């Protein structure tokens, strides 16, 4: 079967399965008794939106090796840009979404410039400062941003298609919207990281000296990585604002930046699929934790769990979920081939995970 599909088929298989899952999830939720499909779909949509941020952040941290602890800031910029454009200027949702992404990308580019001179912990601190500053600036400019109470009553998202206009009303509609955007951005990210640009990113991460000697313009590629990951966060922010129909500065705390970081570490740095699964898992975990009775006395249980997940992942599964999946696949492949892989081969495949 695998041979019949060929390598092309095997490469496309995860996309096909993903697409089928996306289409089937709402139907499945309707037949499972005892749950509220609308609420679960809302939660899934939220996870998909976070996954968009995680994929962008994964390109920056996992592939390019540039740290950011401030991606909640880009997420906030996208959300506020989109909310302000639709609410105050009455622009259509699609326009707001694209402008929100572009504004965030432009600010990402600008933040990438000082980042050229910073690395490691210094860059982490600088981006942390950025993430901290954005919600404060929103509160300070309260007269048009809504201040601490935020912006509410955003119009329904809609998508004009020729003579028709699709209006996203229900949780299921939003779910399809988030899934569609995520699919497009996932394919785009995969194409970038497996191509010429992605190789330049990884070259920078592996050795800046080698990258420069091979003609990789560090200024261009580092700012590109920042802008690209900010674009993803900005688009996700726009979707978030419209999913919730309202936003406030407290949606965008530093804790959210840590969430994003945990998603990609848990999923596996340098893997688009890892970022996706990390985001899904963490969002549902967070929600499940709020249902535990203990949360009544211990509101910040989630933060502790987050810390434990980070430590355990880094200590025991530094390649994250993607690494676990890879070694499982390897074990499966060697079983079907009926020829045990040499130890060297396993090391090789384990090491390779760093690339994408």
């Amino acid at each position, binding site marked *: 079967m695998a041979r019949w599909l060929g390598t092309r088929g095997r490469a496309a298989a995860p996309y096909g399965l993903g697409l089928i899952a996306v289409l089937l999830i709402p139907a499945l939720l309707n037949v499972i008794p005892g749950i509220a499909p609308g609420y679960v779909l809302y939660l899934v949509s939220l996870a998909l939106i976070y996954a968009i941020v995680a994929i962008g952040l994964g390109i920056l941290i996992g592939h390019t090796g540039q740290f950011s602890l401030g991606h909640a800031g880009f997420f906030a910029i996208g959300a506020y840009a989109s909310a302000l454009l639709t609410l105050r200027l009455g622009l259509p949702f699609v326009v707001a979404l694209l402008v929100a992404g572009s504004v965030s990308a432009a600010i990402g580019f600008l933040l990438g410039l000082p980042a050229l001179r910073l690395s490691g912990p210094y860059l982490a601190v600088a981006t942390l400062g950025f993430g901290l500053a954005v919600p404060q600036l929103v509160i300070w400019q309260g007269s048009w941003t809504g201040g601490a109470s935020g912006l509410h009553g955003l119009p329904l998202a809609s998508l004009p298609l020729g003579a028709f206009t699709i209006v996203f009303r229900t949780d299921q509609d939003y779910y399809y919207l988030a899934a569609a955007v995520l699919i497009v951005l996932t394919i785009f990210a995969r194409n970038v990281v497996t191509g*010429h*640009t992605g190789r330049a990113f990884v070259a920078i991460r592996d050795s800046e*000296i080698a990258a*420069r*000697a091979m003609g990789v313009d560090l200024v261009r590629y580092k700012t590109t990585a920042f802008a690209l990951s900010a674009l993803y966060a900005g688009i996700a922010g726009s979707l978030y604002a419209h999913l919730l129909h309202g936003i406030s500065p407290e949606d965008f705390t530093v804790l959210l930046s840590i969430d994003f970081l945990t998603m990609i570490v848990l999923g596996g740095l340098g893997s688009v699929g890892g970022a996706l699964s990390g985001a899904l898992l963490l969002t549902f975990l967070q929600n499940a934790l709020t249902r535990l009775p203990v949360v009544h006395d211990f509101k910040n249980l989630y933060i502790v769990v987050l810390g434990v997940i980070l430590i355990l992942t880094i200590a025991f599964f530094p390649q994250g979920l993607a690494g676990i999946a890879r070694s499982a696949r390897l074990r499966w492949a060697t079983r079907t081939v009926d020829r045990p892989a040499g130890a060297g081969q396993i090391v090789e495949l384990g090491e*390779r995970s760093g690339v994408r």
Partner: protein
Amino acid sequence: MTGPLLEITDLTIRFGGLVAVDGLDLRVNAGEIVGLIGPNGAGKTTVFNCISRFYQPDRGTIRFKGRDITSSRSHEIIRFGIARTFQNVELCRSMTALENLLVGQHVAMRGGVIRDGLRLPGVGADEARATQRADEMLELLGLTRDRDRVVSTLPFGLQKLVELGRALVSDPALLLLDEPTAGADKQEIQGLADLIRRMRDRFDLSVLVVEHDMSFVMGLCDRLSVLDFGRRIAEGAPADVRNDPAVIEAYLGEPEVEVTEV
């Protein structure tokens, strides 16, 4: 082309109070293999890092194909036709041998994040062409078996070969080799000299090689330039340089001892 391929005039660079390179003149003509030799700490690698534009010289000019590259940026150098290797190997360690050779063709490919992300027409053909070229180079260097191995898992000798391939695949006019014999045994060193000569003939290269292994450069180079404490103390054909008293003294501290015993 008239004039030398690479022409360095009065190159001077200081680090704090230390003058690492002091008024160096050096040229490499088309087709030549030139050795830049000298004891440890003589400033040889510093000269390379000036040519690669990792260091900014305090004085002097570097011209390549008649063009002043003294204020060019480091990533532009390979585009002009200068590729290099590093003393301690600077590979993209998480990548396979093939991927490293694709990075070596970075400037030959069109690129662009939107073009890549949308797989615009031409991207697939570019990748296929670069992959074919990389495969040819891997075969030439006997690395086909290691094509898909992550380079950090390769033995040091093979890593050096991959690095050489990555430099060659960019189709340079001038190849800068920083201590190619480091970590190699006597037999490998002989093979390396043959390989470098073969590559020079096949790819129409000029080579500037930094070394401290005298016997290696004696057999390989058309011309030698000897550095000591950042100054050029001798230049000429290997046979003449070998007997130069200043060179013997720099290497061994006393003129009586035969240099060939190093």
